[in-house]
């Protein structure tokens, strides 16, 4: 491998990693709800899209960077908990497939609301973070935003793991995810825990939405749906109910996408991702990290 193709390879890897971290960031929030309620949350991507739009409006109104992030976190948190209370809680005891449908309906609702408020055509996100590429030797470009996305993903991943494993609330979350009724008997307010998980998941979604909007500089209502599908794929690939699985799955998808795009074909990149997914699930039927098996 000569020098140019090597630096090309490094460049593709960097792009793939940052793209993978974008997916991982959405997938971690998704995986929280997915792991605990074992429910396919089709609305997660819409919440992240909503967060990005809120941040856009705040920035357009000349609010500061920090306050617009906070505003979008706040709105997404409120939205997540409201949706949980109104649409998912009444179906807690129903079969697994009924809440999946209400989740799809909620996703439709949020997407339509965004279309009504902000319009359905794509809009440019104001570039607020300085994103001048750092050019390393061999002409490898490394954008500061890529670095911050990777950094934020790692921080959120570690923090979530810590929260999940070593805190009292994490213990309660694990108890609820194992058996909700027994958790109730042990004096855990399961409804409250589920709400907290939704709040946390929505806040993570808002952070992801903000970073992704900055990265792609483009907002469109369908990005939520695409995000949901990618996050779900990542979570399943890593293993259902495993937080680290979501991160690894997201990274893998990003890398495969980047390499397939450069070395094979842009048109067939999704086909290649799906082929990799099917092969991995054939070899490891419960994902990379042996998530839990389940039925509908």
């Amino acid at each position, binding site marked *: 491998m000569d020098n140019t193709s090597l630096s090309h390879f490094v460049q593709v890897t960097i792009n793939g990693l940052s793209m993978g971290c974008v997916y991982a960031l959405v997938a971690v929030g998704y995986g929280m709800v997915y792991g605990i309620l074992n429910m*396919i949350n089709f609305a997660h991507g819409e919440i992240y899209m909503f967060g990005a739009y809120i941040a856009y409006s705040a920035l357009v109104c000349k609010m500061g960077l920090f306050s617009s992030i906070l505003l979008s976190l706040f709105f997404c948190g409120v939205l997540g908990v409201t949706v949980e209370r109104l649409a998912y809680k009444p*179906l807690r005891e129903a079969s697994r*497939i*009924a809440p999946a*449908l209400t989740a799809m309906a909620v996703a439709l609702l949020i997407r339509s609301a965004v279309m*009504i408020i902000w319009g359905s055509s794509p809009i440019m996100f104001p570039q607020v973070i300085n994103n001048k590429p750092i050019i390393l030797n061999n002409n490898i470009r490394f954008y500061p935003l890529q670095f911050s996305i990777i950094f934020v993903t790692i921080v959120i991943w570690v923090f979530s793991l810590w929260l999940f494993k070593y805190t009292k609330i994490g213990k309660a979350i694990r108890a609820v995810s194992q058996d909700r009724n027994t958790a109730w008997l042990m004096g855990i307010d399961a409804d409250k825990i589920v709400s907290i998980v939704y709040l946390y998941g929505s806040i993570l979604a808002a952070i992801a939405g903000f970073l992704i909007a900055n990265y792609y500089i483009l907002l469109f209502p369908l990005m939520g749906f695409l995000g949901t599908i990618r996050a779900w794929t990542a979570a399943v690939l890593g293993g259902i109910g495993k937080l680290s699985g979501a991160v690894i799955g997201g990274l893998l998808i990003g890398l495969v996408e980047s390499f397939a795009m450069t070395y094979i074909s842009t048109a067939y990149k*999704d086909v290649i991702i799906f082929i990799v997914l099917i092969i991995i*699930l*054939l070899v490891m039927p419960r994902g990379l990290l042996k998530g839990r098996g*389940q039925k509908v």
Partner: protein
Amino acid sequence: MKIKLSFKTFNYIIIGLVLIIAPLLFINNYYIIYLLSMFLIYSILCLGLNLITGVAGQFCLGHAGFYGMGAYIAALIATRAVGIPYLLELLLSAIGAGLFAVVVAYSCIRVSGDYLAIITLASAEMFRLTCTNWESLTNGPMGIIGIPYPRILSVAINNNVKIYYLGLVYFFISLYLCNLILHSKYGRAFKAIREDEIVALSMGVPVFKYKVLVFFIGAFFAGIAGNYVAHLIMFISPDNFTTNTSIYLINSIILGGIGTISGSFIGAGLMLFLTEFLRFAPAAWRMVVMAIAIIVVMIKMPQGIAGSELDYKKWFNKIIK
């Protein structure tokens, strides 16, 4: 001999009569007849999907792929290989869709639950992307245009009312076949797989074989629907077979009542009604109303409409006594 009329047969007779008579009342209204034909298509699709997802418990998010396979085979044969008779083409598209589903089922050989859902979703997307990019065969995103009306033996199906009745025949046949399957040993085996695979296996049900079989049967119906839609609209493109279509179908069967035959067409009808009835409203507001309607129905009837005990059912039973 006294014929005992059950609630179910009574409903079926009413629905059958309505479907036979309705187009005659609106014979000049192209739109209504088109809607009724679409209702038939979605009902057939939902019947197939309900066998896979509702009866056998395999959460399939790739039904649009099977549907698209049927439609593309029909369109390619009808436009490129003109000599082939229609009935053979129908059989080919149904079997083609079925074989595609068998391949999908084989790649799901070790997985279940959401892992299976994502593989079915992935295969449908792979099919769609291939159709989009293989331009020499499928004309890419532009789609295939000018698919002719079918001609069965010497009978030319050459207007919208006739093709509606052709669809109605398919609908009744599918309904009948579904009923047969559901009440046969196969139907019971599918239900056993849904409830518990290990128990089914120890009772002597060849689980894997039956899983492949149920995918084949469900996709067979989807292939028929795909063939029909190609001849009805005379135009198909990859955009008709996206993940959204699969999700729409899943929505229909959950809304109608999962695992029930009547739920398939109730759900198909309701979803079509919700999307079409609100046509006058701007697109985004229409979706808001639809979403709220779905949420309310689901919260009130988590089992779907056909799965719930409705008041008029009791009322009917009272009258019949």
